[in-house]
């Protein structure tokens, strides 16, 4: 970075220290991925020696913003200033040289390397290409000892527990002197004691003048650590406040913000037969343990929970995408053992994945083919193009696809239209049980409302809808009955007037008595 003066610099209106330039200042940052807007107008001002918490619901744009700060993505617009100097063309390497280190949820560790190799990856100590393994081992040991992490530098990283990998990741971020440290849900996999040690470390770094950007959903630790809190909603910075005196209730209000009652249709509730019954369901990978639930015809059964609580895995197991180790599934009163999607479709169960790009759609193919994909076996080996076209056209019209051209490649569509193509699949064959995994993630508000209307229509026509969502207002408003999951177990079943934010959050943030 060029060495120049800070003459023309004026601190942002929300900068707490108005005298010195803030360590990091972002304003008006925008970022789109294809047709999806991840950030619209995000701003953040970080001062040295403070902990700045980024708060927002899933999909509010927190991870996009920290990726921009760390140089992984370039912003589409807005300004990015480090020490009062505008920064352009940032890459992860340059960010690191400038003292910006990030600890992401997806680890930047190579599982097949040893701990010390990972710590020094990309900045090995060497003389003419010959590694100085001794020096690296000593330094790695020194850093790990200094941080109080009980990890051997010679262990293979992939053999470590997730908590230990998290520690390696943190150690890696601190190998070089840092000015800005980004921590993305750093306590997600840590035990109580490890969390305390991490907090002590954060306190120490703050005292040393490091600016820390901290992303977390855990209200208690936000209150424990934060100096300042910036709230993101739908890709925009809503407010930025001093953390002194905030309460957990206040944080929830900040995070969820406006009530968008208008967005959610009134779901008629006419519970009929139990179409899907799970009892004692446990998966081979232990992400789900002893889950029992019922989904009835004519109602929306919601499953809420934090990311990684196993809520998606439950419905994926029903569709045959996860291996069940024990427990039973009954479908329309009959015992059912899931063996794969083809079997599930034949049995009248349809699953809509959250990752529509990876698991849902063939991006290069037209809407028509994508929509009819799940019903290929009904065409008896011969695709009757004309019939297919008129049927899919009618279906897409019903879903209000705009523009109404079913020959467009799915890759050119926005998130909302892509979801409509997915939904059309559920209408191409007789289906009674609809399993939705995060149906509105990454789509804009208008398309959301249409997806909700679609759910309402399904329920009105007597289908059983299971809605898995991390979007709290969504499951709160749409569910006739709501299960809350926590660490692979059902923590609560709520009905009617009990379905409130307070009830659900109480289950989310219940302390683990383990």
């Amino acid at each position, binding site marked *: 970075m060029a060495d120049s003066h800070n003459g023309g610099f004026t601190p942002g209106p929300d900068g707490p220290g108005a005298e010195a330039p803030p360590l990091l200042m972002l304003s008006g940052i925008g970022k789109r991925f294809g047709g999806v807007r991840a950030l619209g107008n995000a701003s953040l001002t970080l001062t040295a020696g403070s902990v700045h918490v980024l708060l927002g619901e899933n999909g509010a744009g927190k991870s996009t913003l920290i990726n921009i700060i760390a140089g992984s993505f370039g912003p589409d617009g807005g300004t990015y200033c480090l020490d009062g100097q505008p920064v352009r063309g940032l890459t992860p390497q340059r960010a690191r040289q400038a003292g910006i280190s990030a600890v992401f949820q997806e680890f930047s560790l190579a599982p097949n390397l040893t701990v010390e190799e990972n710590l020094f990856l*990309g900045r090995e100590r060497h003389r003419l290409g010959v590694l100085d393994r001794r020096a690296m081992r000593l330094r790695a040991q020194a850093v790990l000892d200094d941080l109080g992490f009980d990890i051997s530098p010679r262990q293979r990283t992939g053999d470590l527990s997730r908590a230990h990998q998290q520690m390696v990741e943190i150690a890696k971020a601190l190998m070089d002197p840092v000015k800005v440290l980004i921590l993305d849900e750093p306590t997600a996999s840590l035990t109580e004691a490890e969390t305390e040690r991490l907090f002590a470390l954060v306190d120490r770094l703050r005292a040393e003048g490091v600016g820390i950007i901290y992303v977390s959903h855990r209200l208690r630790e936000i209150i424990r650590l934060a100096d300042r809190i910036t709230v993101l909603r739908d890709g925009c910075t809503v407010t930025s406040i001093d953390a002194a005196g905030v309460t957990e209730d206040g944080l929830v209000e900040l995070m969820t913000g406006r009530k968008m009652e208008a967005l959610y249709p009134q779901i008629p509730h006419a519970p009929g037969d139990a179409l899907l019954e799970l009892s004692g369901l446990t998966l081979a990978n232990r992400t789900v343990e002893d889950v029992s639930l019922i989904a009835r015809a004519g109602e929306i059964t919601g499953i809420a929970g934090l990311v990684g609580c196993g809520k998606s895995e439950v419905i994926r197991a029903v569709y045959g995408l996860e291996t069940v180790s024990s427990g039973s599934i009954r479908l329309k009163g009959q015992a059912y053992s899931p063996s794969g999607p083809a079997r599930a479709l034949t049995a009248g169960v349809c699953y809509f994945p959250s990752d529509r790009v990876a698991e849902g759609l063939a991006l290069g193919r037209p809407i028509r083919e994508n929509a009819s994909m799940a019903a290929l076996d009904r065409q008896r080996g011969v695709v009757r193009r004309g019939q297919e076209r008129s049927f899919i056209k009618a279906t897409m019209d019903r879903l209000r696809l705009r523009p109404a051209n079913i020959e467009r490649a799915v890759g050119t569509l926005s998130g909302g239209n892509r979801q409509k193509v997915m939904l059309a699949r559920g209408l191409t064959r007789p289906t009674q049980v609809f399993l939705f995994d995060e149906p509105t993630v990454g789509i804009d508000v208008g398309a959301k409302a249409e997806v909700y209307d679609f759910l309402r229509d399904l329920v009105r026509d007597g289908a059983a809808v299971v809605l898995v969502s991390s979007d709290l207002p969504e499951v709160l408003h749409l569910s006739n009955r709501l299960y809350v999951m926590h660490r692979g177990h059902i923590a609560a079943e709520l009905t009617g007037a009990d379905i409130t934010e307070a009830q659900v959050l109480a289950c989310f943030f219940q302390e683990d008595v383990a």
Partner: protein
Amino acid sequence: MSVHLPSHHPQPQQFSDRLMLAVAGIGLLPLLLVALVAVLALTEPRFLGAVNLLNILRTASVLAVVASGQMLVLIVGGFDLSVGAVVALSSTVGATAMAGVAASGASPALAVTAGCAAGLGAGAVVGLVNGLCVAVLKVSPFMVTLGTMSAASGVALLLTNGIPVYGLPDGFVSGFGRAVWLGLPSALVVSVVLLGAVAVMQRHTLAGPALRAVGGNLQAARVSGVAVRGWTVAAYVGCAVLASLTGLLLTARIGSGQASLGGLNMTMESIATAVIAGVSLRGGAGRVEMVALGAVFLAVISNAMNLSRVDSKAQLVVLGVILIAAVALDELGKRRRVRV
């Protein structure tokens, strides 16, 4: 084929668990090799003869050098179908240049130098094309190396019309290719030196962790500042150079440059060797010492089949079965890991 088990197993309950742990400690390959050698030594009197053993080692050494190159590419998560064709290319280009310079009346030393440089250069160009297409153009390694395989063997055939290139300096053939050093064939000695060089590179230079990081977690390597493209290209060039060296060694031994050397069979054997040696097809793991053992293992099997007069066509079937079995075991080992 590497069998990985959780190291934190408190107490293996069953005998099969104990056995698996023991196998995991030493590795399956050395045990299989010892067992195979023991059975052959007991049942086949000709097996332990000095000439036969040297024969096995000579076959193994050629294969090991090509397979160690293949390993480099596998470590970065690719693979190279062109190695066999590069062997043929370096043999014909090297021999043509060598014979040409020798015929022009230059000193044999100059002719050998020019020939080796031409052979290595031709191979390196193929490696560079492979590496650049994969790393920069992001073409799948399968398609790129399938293409260069065809092109390289085409050039080798065009250059020679399928006729062996003679006229190599005597010093290259009898003085080097057929020489015996320390009681061992020269090719074996050279191969051991090359494998040693690869081992040192893997353990003691930047290339070791860099190549494994690229294959182990590309994104992690990138955000850690590893020159991902550079190392990918380097792996393909290294692979092609090792294949070219093999081509030159074979040329020196048989005394002529031939477009029929190497070929698809050697490509297959090199991949089989690497996979048997525990080099992961998903990238990120592989040790040259194990590759050398893997080459000896395949050479012993092929020798055993020769001694018991198994038809060479049937041997191809066996090789195919071994390759598939090794890959399947690798896959099973991986799955066991994931569940841990």
